[in-house]
């Protein structure tokens, strides 16, 4: 016990609270590394939330629910991909429109699903491992999506850093003209990156409607997508930093509520604004060292590509 708060429980719940943001942020990170700025994360998340919810309720399987959520997010991102990659629409405007569209469409799709309880996603049975003091709760006491979110971060880091696929993706994001000249299919690679980003955002959304708040209500993501977007930038487009950012944000959000519940004598106004302030501060300081953060931004970010030759 520490100031009336059990740190074990706190860490365990911050891991859960951060999952939607991590998933969405890592998806967006890959998209931006490919040189595309998709501001529609919030819209794709909420589509994932509603599609995942519908799929889980109709099939009775939470796993299929998550598959449905990823499909829903990816389907919405396909609209963005077609508009920006083939019709060369402005990425900022299209992304914002995507959010508005996603919010409205999800509300329509969810009409018949208000007030229903989805099938529950259980904790992965680790048997005796879960009974280890402290470690058991933190490491072995979660549902499978929590582990998946960490695995996705590790995979994104490894792929971007050490594989040919990652190198090509980054090349497309840094200079699409050079990548094109080398014979890489810029448009196809970006399409795939956008679909991946949509799928991840959808998965994050589905986690909100299936696990964190197991229900469907309009506007259920309430801004998580925007937080994910901000974390990508403040994490200087590095996967592990995005994880740190999401854990910081989720952690301080949970901590401030716990501090309130534990009756800490800190004014609530400071507690409520703490997650935003501290996350930004820490990530800015982390990124301000040797390499300047701004230089990490993919050079072709947000620019449309049109093969003129």
């Amino acid at each position: 016990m520490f100031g009336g708060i059990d740190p074990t429980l706190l860490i365990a719940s911050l891991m859960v609270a951060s999952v939607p943001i991590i998933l969405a942020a890592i998806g967006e990170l890959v998209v931006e590394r490919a040189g595309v700025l998709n501001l529609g994360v919030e819209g794709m998340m909420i589509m994932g939330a509603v599609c995942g919810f519908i799929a889980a309720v109709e099939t009775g399987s939470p796993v299929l629910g998550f598959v449905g959520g990823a499909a829903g997010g990816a389907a919405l991102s396909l609209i963005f991909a077609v508009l920006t990659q083939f019709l060369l629409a402005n990425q900022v405007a299209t992304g914002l429109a995507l959010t508005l569209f996603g919010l409205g469409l999800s509300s329509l799709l969810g009409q018949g699903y208000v007030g229903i309880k989805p099938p529950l996603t259980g904790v992965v049975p680790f048997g005796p491992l879960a009974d280890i003091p402290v470690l058991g709760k933190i490491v072995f006491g979660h549902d499978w999506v929590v582990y998946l979110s960490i695995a996705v971060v590790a995979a994104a880091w490894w792929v971007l850093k050490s594989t040919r696929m990652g190198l090509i993706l980054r090349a497309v994001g840094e200079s699409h003209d050079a990548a094109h000249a080398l014979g890489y299919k810029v448009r196809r690679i970006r399409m795939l990156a956008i679909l991946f980003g949509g799928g991840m955002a959808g998965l994050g959304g589905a986690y909100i409607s299936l696990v964190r708040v197991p229900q469907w209500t309009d506007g259920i993501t309430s801004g998580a997508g925007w937080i994910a977007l901000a974390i990508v930038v403040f994490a200087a487009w590095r996967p592990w930093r995005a994880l740190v950012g999401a854990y910081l944000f989720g952690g301080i959000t949970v901590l401030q509520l716990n501090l309130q519940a534990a009756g800490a004598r800190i004014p609530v106004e400071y507690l409520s604004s703490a997650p935003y302030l501290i996350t930004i501060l820490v990530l800015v300081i982390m990124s301000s060292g040797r390499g300047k953060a701004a230089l990490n931004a993919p050079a072709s970010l947000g620019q449309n590509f049109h093969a003129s030759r």
Partner: protein
Amino acid sequence: MKRRTLLATAALGLSMAFGGAAGAQALDKAKACFVYVGPIGDLGWSYQHHQGALAVQAAYGDKVEVVWQENVPEGADAERVLTQMALSGCNIIFTTSFGYMDATNAVAAKFPDVKFEHATGFKREHPNVATYNARFYEGRAIQGHIAGKMTKSNKIGYIGSFPIPEVVMGINAYYLHAKKVNPAVELTVVWAFTWFDPAKEADAAKAMIEQGVDVIASHTDSTAPLAEAAKSNGAVIGFGQASDMADYKPSPRVSSIIDNWAPYYVKRVGEVLEGTWTQTDVWAGIKEGEVEIGEITSVVPADVKAEAEAMRDAIAAGTYHPFTGPIKKQDGSEWLAEGAVAPDGDLLGMNFYVEGITGDIPK
């Protein structure tokens, strides 16, 4: 002084002459408009206002056109939406959140022929602005009674939205009645600073449960706190807020406060049709049927249920007021003397906790 009186009288006369003439006109067809702060699918506050709007449609059929807009932010956007509605021919506009107060009055000044009805506010700066509210604290008193009897850990919780009098009133009523039946009870208040954010509401409930709280009342608009309590397999109970939230019966939802706006909306729109609408300030409660207590489920022992229902009936009959002295403020100073009943003015401006609640109200 004299001149001012004269001017005032003249102005009054003018407004009577014109406003009166316009107001007395009966309408063949009226357009009733509603502005909601959240989605109507929240199953709580906005949902319940929308049920009232649907009741208006059902009551008057073709004579009334009902229009609504969801998710209107409190602030500058509200003014834009209200102006748009007034321009589009609405005869009466219901603005259903506290934060629309200034926007409602500002737009009302520009459209003297349109009637405005603001929920839970206190500003009526123009003759075409009326206010209405419900005595939610009466329901909170009953929840407090149940909470005090049902808690095993002697820790009860309250998820606050914003530190406004209506919410503080609810917290005080809840705590006083829990304390009355269980002197050992401790209240934990968590401020969410939002009306609607399911994930945050769930996190707030979770934080309380981790602190050992086993009865949670919420003043936010979604069912998320109940969904979180449902994960505890019956160890934690809560209440439906604003709407019945019957999907969570019999546990964790053991009772609820239902805001029944329908009779008021039907009456006021009817007055617009007849041309008899006048500015009013209505604060109705259990007695008038505006606040209803949802079914107390089988999880609550029969004797506790009977006591809670007796309190409900006493409040309805006017023989019991939830704020009856002696009650002291948090700092120990006296608020209500023995047997004294809280005046409405004190309640509507309530900015203090009663004795025994720990922590401060955010400024």
